[in-house]
């Protein structure tokens, strides 16, 4: 080997000129913290990736031999990212796995025996059709002639797969497309309620809820039947007309209000779900929380930075919103109610994926007697959910309650979440500290408790296999697999399943980032796809990492 090849750039010049003082070693401008795997956002080939910290922010970087280097912001606060590592719970092994380990993560979904966690939440997408054509839709749904919708028999098989894996499943979410326009949606709910599935959540844009009171009443009748809840996960992005036009393509404000009022009338519990995009509706987070607190149907808000999979507005991967950014915005917009440290990472999945806080509230925002107390100011949450430091916790029943509350299966309106809230409230130990025992009053209060969830789903830029391996939100596929949500949307499984189900060729979707312009073209659904279609032949995410080869070639 020629020693000269080791000398490059500046130092080679300096050595040759004999001016050694000119050759100064420089420090890198970043701290290297993780080595992992990801995918190329263009061709979806599996790549080595590294996570680095630069100027207090966390970035994931990878290089594709064909398409070059890509980098994306994955967490806006490096200290919070590193601190969150303590909030990581040992995973639970599902009863059965659906696939085998063959090519490694993320190509074997799922769940394969290397997966670190069971499914807290199973999602059944009942169709690809939608009564909207939102400019932002990770599922790439809409008024499309070439999609699919599942049959009752397929739904039953999907539920059975989930139950076989979980024993008794906590939550199934029906999604789409738009699940409320599937003509069998009530049958699907009935079917799920006939199985060992404790709770059902319906993920909807709310148009049918706003316009079809009989349908809402039918959901209301099913809510609580046999002790099983049906809750509503309502797309709700803000109050500005521009927010609606740019995220949903149309002004839905009136319909959202009518949907909510109809839900309140039918006794349905609603989570407002906001897709949050930089420069669009990031100023409306506090208003959404305040609106939710005031509306009788609403018991929680979920903020999701827009997932740059599927269809979405052009974005910059280096300045995208992350969980810590969203939490910072919430705190900045309602400083009297929140601080960033009221939010705690969720330990069941990877702790950087999701953060939650709960509020105890009284009265109506703006009213004279309105009171709000974040539960983490009453209970030292880290004394229970920091699994690294705590070999002893003050009370294991309280830990169990907090585990269920800080979980992907926590939904307001479910019996489990309400029960655990009461248990946690009992542990506020005001009785012990103050001699004040007010279980009755606290129980009343937990009936009005309010949850705020912040969840950053991964896209083909941010995908980190480390997080995927512990994902607890799974897409249940008609062919009987459980695929981690972010793998489904970012690695190529969504395209695979749609192609299988519809019989129509579906190209791999590519994020809408300006730097990918040279490689992409428009898909029929409004998303971006690689110009040469699916370039990698059969199989999901072929592996281009350095596995299966001798470490040193001779």
């Amino acid at each position, binding site marked *: 080997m020629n020693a000269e090849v080791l000398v490059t750039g500046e130092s080679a010049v300096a050595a040759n000129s004999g001016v050694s003082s000119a050759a100064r070693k420089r420090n890198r401008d970043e701290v290297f913290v993780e080595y992992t795997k990801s995918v190329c956002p263009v061709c979806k080939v599996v790549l080595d990736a590294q996570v680095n910290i630069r100027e207090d922010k966390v970035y994931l970087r990878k290089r594709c031999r064909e398409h070059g280097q890509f980098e994306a912001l994955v967490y806006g606060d490096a200290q919070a990212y590193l601190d969150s590592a303590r909030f990581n719970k040992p995973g639970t092994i599902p009863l059965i796995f659906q696939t085998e380990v063959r090519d490694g993560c993320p190509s074997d979904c799922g769940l394969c025996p290397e997966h670190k966690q069971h499914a807290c939440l199973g999602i059944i997408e009942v169709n690809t059709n939608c009564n909207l054509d939102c400019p932002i839709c990770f599922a790439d749904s809409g008024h499309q002639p070439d999609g699919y919708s599942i049959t009752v028999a397929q739904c039953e098989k999907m539920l059975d797969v989930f139950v076989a894996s979980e024993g008794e499943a906590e939550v199934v979410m029906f999604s789409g497309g738009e699940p409320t326009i599937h003509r069998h949606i009530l049958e699907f709910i009935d079917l799920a309620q006939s199985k060992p599935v404790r709770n059902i959540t319906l993920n909807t844009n709310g148009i049918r809820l706003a316009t079809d009171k009989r349908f809402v009443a039918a959901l209301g009748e099913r809510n609580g039947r046999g002790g099983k809840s049906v809750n509503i996960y309502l797309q709700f992005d803000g109050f500005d007309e521009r927010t609606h036009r740019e995220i949903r393509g149309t002004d839905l404000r009136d319909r959202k209000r009518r949907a909510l009022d109809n839900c309140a009338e039918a006794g349905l519990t609603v989570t407002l779900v906001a897709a949050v995009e930089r420069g669009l509706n990031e100023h409306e987070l506090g208003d959404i929380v305040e609106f939710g607190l005031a509306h009788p149907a609403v018991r929680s808000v979920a903020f999701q930075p827009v997932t740059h999979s599927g269809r979405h507005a052009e974005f910059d991967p280096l300045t995208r919103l992350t969980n810590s950014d969203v939490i910072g915005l919430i705190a900045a917009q309602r400083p009297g109610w929140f601080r960033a440290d009221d939010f705690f990472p969720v330990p069941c999945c990877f702790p950087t994926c999701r953060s939650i806080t709960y509020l105890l509230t009284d009265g109506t925002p703006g009213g004279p007697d309105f009171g709000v107390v974040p539960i983490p100011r009453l209970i030292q949450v880290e004394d229970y959910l920091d699994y690294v430091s705590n070999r002893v916790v003050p009370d294991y029943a309280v830990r169990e309650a907090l585990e269920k509350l800080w979980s992907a299966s926590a939904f307001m309106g479910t019996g489990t979440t309400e029960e655990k809230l009461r248990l946690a409230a009992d542990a506020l130990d*005001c009785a012990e*500290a103050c001699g*004040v025992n007010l279980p009755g009053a606290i129980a009343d209060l937990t009936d009005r408790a309010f949850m705020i969830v912040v969840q950053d789903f991964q896209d083909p830029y941010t995908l980190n296999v480390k997080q995927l391996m512990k994902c607890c939100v799974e897409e249940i596929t008609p062919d009987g697999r459980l695929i981690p949500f972010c793998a489904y949307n970012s690695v190529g499984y969504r395209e695979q399943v749609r192609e299988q189900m519809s019989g129509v060729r579906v190209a791999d979707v590519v994020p809408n980032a300006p730097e990918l312009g040279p490689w992409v073209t428009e898909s029929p659904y409004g998303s971006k796809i690689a110009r040469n279609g699916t370039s990698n032949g059969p199989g999901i995410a072929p592996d281009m990492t350095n596995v299966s080869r001798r470490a040193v070639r001779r």
Partner: protein
Amino acid sequence: MSADSTQIKACCAAAYGQDAVALVLRESYHPGGLALTRRLARALGLRPGQHVIDVASGPGATARLLAAEFGVTVDGVDLGQSAVDRARSAAQAARLPATVRFSVGDAERLPLPGGMADAVVCECAFCTFPDKAAAAGEFARVLRPGGRVGITDVTVADGGLPAELTTLTAWVACIADARPVSRYTDILAVAGLRTVRVEPHDDALARMIDQIEARLALLRMTAADHLMAAGVNVDAVLRYTAVARRAVADGLLGYALLVAEKPA
């Protein structure tokens, strides 16, 4: 006045000058929580098999933690019978009765033999002892030569609190009787204990103030009528907590971890 409202008054009647914060916090919670307890234990260099005395052990969370995570045996001493009872049953539930014992006793006259303990811990309590010199003398007596005492406690700036904060001291006994760090080290030195480590943990105090405010807000939501019957003015209390928060931010009020050693 019902028993309940009397208790609330005892808990929260800051407007009337009772020792509200000490009552809210002393038993169940100390600034810094379990994380600061672990830090204290590591600063003491606790090793399995060692014997530790926890002075003002409250419901025993610290004693259980030390026994379970550091493998030491612990004698907890507390002035209150009810706290000792609760600590005993919690230790039983945690299956630690053999390594964690509790007894009723006064910090100024510890009911334990001298020269036996490898370490003494005293969390958020030293500042409340009326005769601090006597308590420090007891720490020195029960420690073996080379043993260490670990204290976490409220501190005030050198020269004490400025006049405008004396309203605060009327309200909270542990602040009223808190001392500058240098005063604590002097008291320990007089007892023959040489301070080997001092760490500021003021943010733990700020978080404690948050917790007081949150509990008051909760009480207002759940028991407004009780509070009114007890004559508690929550707004007045919250004015005090705001003063306290400012004092912490200005460095006038703080929280510190101290480790002192008995000469070998």
